[in-house]
């Protein structure tokens, strides 16, 4: 299996780190052994790494460094946003939480837990194209108590279909109604320009490993002055909002990835969009019974989600892997479970279309030749799978 040339089209699950990032992490591991909270020279050196990473991440999303809370990744940041907001010290009761049905499990399950614990939780439906309706958000805010101020959490880009939500509009009307807004921007940061100022949100989640930093590091941006209850309790790190010794080597990697700005978004976005569009056209033209999910909404340039009629997505993923092509049926966090994609279900797609869905997600290493090969391999595989007339599992 080592001999075949492998093509990686699962950047939404995670992205490989560049040699530059790997070198930076490795150097930090070797040369920066201190604890960033220590007084001595070792500590000061580690602290500088953390400070530099904070500045780089803040610049990437147009924020102030002091507003960045480093976490172990996107899931922890989402948990901190929802649970930290819910439990923040305030007068008078529990704030309402409003999330959408296509959020990542980190947001959805945190909201469901809070719902069981007594917070009023609303889960909003989405359109057949995977878009959240601005009016539905407004109506939901109007239905819940305005005191204490509710929190709305809407993802910026969906991980499975890549649809971009009208977040600036949602944030504007939420603000008019006194609600705070969190966005899980894990699949957007590093792929499309993200600026917290123009979005007008109050909290934003990002994960390093989706844009070239190592796994195990991410951040929650929290607008200055927004009260938040820490979820990891202990020392005073991250201004008391997240206890625990800073992961210096990973933060050094995060700094490099953030500064590199994902190899310059301006050139990369149209390049990936062109490759993605060619991949979609190639598959739709050569394979009958295919449809792109979420094509009617604005999308990030790197993602396409295609349903293949009469074939299970799972079989396509395995068959493509045996040909050296790595894709997925949906969220890697849900793979291996029995549940079909909650995102595609929320879009109201038929069970057959949900089961036949495959996600291709591109990245900066993706080449023209790779897309050519995928366009050649997919029709042959799908024809073979369909020929088996396989009983649905």
């Amino acid at each position, binding site marked *: *299996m*080592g001999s075949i040339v492998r093509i990686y089209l699962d950047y939404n699950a995670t992205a490989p780190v560049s040699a530059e990032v790997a070198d930076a992490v490795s150097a930090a591991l070797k040369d920066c052994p201190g604890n960033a909270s220590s007084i001595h020279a070792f500590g000061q050196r580690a602290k500088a790494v953390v400070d530099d990473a904070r500045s780089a991440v803040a610049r990437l999303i147009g924020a102030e460094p002091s507003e960045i809370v480093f976490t172990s990744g996107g899931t922890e940041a989402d948990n901190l946003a929802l649970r930290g907001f819910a439990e923040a010290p305030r007068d008078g009761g529990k704030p309402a939480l409003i999330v959408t049905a296509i959020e990542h499990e980190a947001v959805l399950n945190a909201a469901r837990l809070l719902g069981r614990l007594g917070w009023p939780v609303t889960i909003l439906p989405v359109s057949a194209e995977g878009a959240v309706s601005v009016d539905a958000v407004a109506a939901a805010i109007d239905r819940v108590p305005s005191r204490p101020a509710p929190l709305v959490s809407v993802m910026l880009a969906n991980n499975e279909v890549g649809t971009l939500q009208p977040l600036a509009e949602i944030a504007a009307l939420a603000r008019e109604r006194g609600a705070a807004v969190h966005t899980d921007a894990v699949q957007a940061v590093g792929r499309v320009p993200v600026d917290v100022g123009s979005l007008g949100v109050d909290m934003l989640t990002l994960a390093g490993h989706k844009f070239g930093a190592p796994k195990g590091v991410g951040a929650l941006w929290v607008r200055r002055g927004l009260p938040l209850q820490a979820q990891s309790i202990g020392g005073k790190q991250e201004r008391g909002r997240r206890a625990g010794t800073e992961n210096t080597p990973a933060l050094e990697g995060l700094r490099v990835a953030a500064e590199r700005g994902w190899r310059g978004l301006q050139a990369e976005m149209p390049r990936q969009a062109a490759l993605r569009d060619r991949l979609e056209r190639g598959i739709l033209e050569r394979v009958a019974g295919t449809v792109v999910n979420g094509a009617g909404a604005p999308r990030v340039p790197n993602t396409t989600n295609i349903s293949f009629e009469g074939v299970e997505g*799972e*079989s396509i993923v*395995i*068959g493509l*892997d*045996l040909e050296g092509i790595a894709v997925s049926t949906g969220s890697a966090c849900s793979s*291996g479970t*029995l549940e079909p994609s909650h995102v595609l279900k929320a879009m109201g797609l038929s069970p057959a279309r949900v089961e036949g869905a495959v996600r291709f997600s591109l990245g900066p290493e993706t080449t023209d030749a790779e897309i050519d090969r995928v366009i050649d391999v997919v029709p042959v*595989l799908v024809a*073979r*799978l369909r*020929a*088996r*007339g*396989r*009983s*649905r*599992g």
Partner: protein
Amino acid sequence: MADARMRVVVAMSGGVDSSVAAALLVEAGHDVVGVSMQLYDASAGDQKFGTCCTIDDLHDARRVAHGLGIPHYVVNLERRFQDVVVSNFVREYASGRTPIPCAHCNSELKFSTLVEQALGFAAACVATGHYARVTRDAAGLYHLWRGADDRKDQAYFLFALTQAQLARALFPVGALSKDEVRRLALERGMRVAEKPDSQEICFVPDGEYAAVVDRHLPGDRCGLVVDAQGRVLGRHDGVHHFTVGQRKGLRISAPEPLYVVRLDADRRLVQVGPKAALERRTLTAAGMNWVAGAPPAGDICAQVQIRSRHAAAEARVTPVGADRMAVEFDAPQSAVTPGQAAVVFQGDELLGGGWID
């Protein structure tokens, strides 16, 4: 069959037999793909399930595959398993019969659904860790034989395989003894070398099969325990709690030990009697599969096995059309149980089998 170098899907349960099967195929130079079937949601609740297909077993299969340097996938066949295995199991028990889900799983899942998937992945064969052997004769006909280890032989559970299925089946450990398989696993440093054999039906936690029936098909099935003359001896909670030949759980005191002799689901009767009442000289079976593709031309002398731990007994077998057979044993057999398989052997060769009426 094993041609020079081909892609083979190995059904990996996480046990020692299928792990060694995979290792032998890798060593023979084949392009081996490990597949574990997820057949039911073993993560629900904290029930203890049998030793097959649990999360731990999937983990073991993955670790073994990684050690062999082969890809490993978990395919979700839960719905198909529910449709063809569990629902049949429940229906059979509820109708007073004693089913063999493993036989259905082999012929309708492993060697049908999984084979279809494997062909889709450009694989030529599906291999399992069963103790059974397949050969192909000069005329191109496939023959199915007992495994070489008569204590571990599993041919009984494979009686429903057709010629087309046998053409795609590989049993790499079928010619080995269990001791040899464990030794091969140890020699290769496999983590599953010492893993105990699975004993129970995989989707039935703690052997509580009646609870599975109650969960899938709730309803009041209480009835009477009677003797051969119809005299009422006691009450029971449903015929699905019993199997022919069973002694335990009758809650009746009698001068001599009583056994379940017959189950009548329609009238909710459990008929009991002394051990001698269990003996039968004849049986009929339906849903026959003749491995050769057609029944023998006339009566044959053979050995017939009527449950997995029964020593096949000499009998005259009369094919009745393509789908049925009548069996007359030379000596009476105890506990001929409706729903179990009657499987016909001549020596070590499995000729066919069907479901006891």
